[in-house]
């Protein structure tokens, strides 16, 4: 198979539509999970959902895996549909690129809300990174996290309202252009619904004698980098550089090739850091 034929075959799969189906499932299951979630007793209510609430474990798993799949399929969709993105204006492209960190932060706040050992550590680290950003950092932390002051209350609002609205506002034009009918994608929806029957969503209770807690899988590289660099550089500037390079990586841009090389190096570096984090 030639390199030219590969994107053509992959493009035949409707990755964007599949990711949208996962988003729909994530939203519906998210509403259900929120009915039993209590930000004032975050870990207790999450554990109770798995152990006591009828089908609670299933709906939490459905919410977890449909959200993860939404993100992963969005990435595949971006890579496959990259060639046809030339028609977008700079503003349209910029808005779509910003949806990626927003989705990632939605996943991330989901991890924090579990308030298990992974979630609690992820929340503490996020707050420390934001507070290290000069001038606007404390205000951003107050608006979206503020775990030390308000527990899970603001993270909960961020997860179920603020970032969803922000994502919708950014992707609105894109969604209006490419509409789907969920009835055309019933096998995809069925697979996600079935997968969650057999695989439970993770939860990490606090255990004595645990010497290493790894964050969410997409956060591993960043967690490792925070070991060597200050929070502002490792937690904000480093990921922001990737998003900015992605925004500039357009065919008509004069630094197009340099940006592509930068993105590949960044991803390789992140992969190495993630592997290093797993080796601890």
């Amino acid at each position, binding site marked *: 198979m030639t390199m030219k034929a590969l994107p053509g075959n992959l493009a035949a799969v409707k990755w964007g539509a599949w990711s949208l189906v996962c988003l729909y499932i994530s939203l519906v299951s998210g509403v259900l999970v929120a009915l039993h979630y209590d930000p004032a007793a975050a870990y207790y209510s999450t554990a109770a959902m798995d152990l006591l609430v009828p089908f609670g474990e299933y709906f939490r798993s459905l919410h977890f895996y449909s959200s993860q799949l939404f993100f992963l399929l969005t990435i595949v969709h971006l890579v496959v549909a990259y060639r046809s993105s030339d028609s977008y204006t700079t503003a349209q492209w910029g808005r779509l690129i910003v949806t990626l960190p927003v989705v990632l932060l939605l996943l991330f706040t989901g991890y924090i809300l579990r308030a298990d*050992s992974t979630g*609690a*550590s992820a929340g*503490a*680290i996020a*707050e*420390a*990174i934001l507070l290290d950003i000069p001038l606007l950092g*404390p*205000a951003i932390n*107050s*608006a979206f996290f503020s775990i*030390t*002051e308000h527990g899970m209350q603001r993270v909960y609002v961020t997860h179920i309202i603020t970032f969803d609205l922000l994502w919708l506002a950014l992707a609105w034009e894109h969604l209006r252009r490419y509409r789907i009918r969920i009835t055309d994608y019933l096998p995809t929806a069925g697979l996600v619904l079935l997968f969650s029957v057999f695989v439970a969503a993770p939860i990490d209770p*606090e255990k*004595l*004698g*645990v*010497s*290493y*807690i790894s*964050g969410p899988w997409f956060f591993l590289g960043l*967690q490792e980098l*925070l*070991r*060597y660099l200050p*929070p502002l550089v490792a937690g904000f500037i480093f990921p922001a550089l990737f998003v900015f390079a992605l925004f500039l990586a357009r065919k008509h841009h004069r630094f197009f090739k340099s940006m592509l090389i930068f993105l590949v190096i960044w991803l390789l570096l992140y992969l190495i850091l993630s592997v290093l984090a797993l080796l*601890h």
Partner: protein
Amino acid sequence: MRRPASKSRRILVTRRIFLGIGIVSLLYPLYRFIGFRLPRKPQRIEVAKQILPGQFRLFPNFILFARKDRVWAVSRKCTHLGCTLHYVEKDDLLECPCHQSRFSSDGRLLNGPAKAPLNTYPVEKRQDPPYYVVTL
């Protein structure tokens, strides 16, 4: 009748200035509203059981140590990025599960990436229950 170009530009600039002032005057109350913190009451934790010398008690936010005739409370919040520290009893030290910073049981920094020692809290020792009151 069409306005001259310079007049149109002047109107546009004036509009933009008003818009800018409007946005800034909206942002300020928003900034103050979001950033407001209710003053926190000092938290007093009462410990009903006595801790024998050489023992310790683990709490969500601190660890209470007792050695000979001394009792002290040390924070479990890592000074690097705020993760909750674990107590490694065999080495008598606190270790961060996120980046493995280490602290002695009295809060001194042993190795990084953390750069500052741990907070300690005042402990009031009593003869009757509650035997210890820790103020956070």
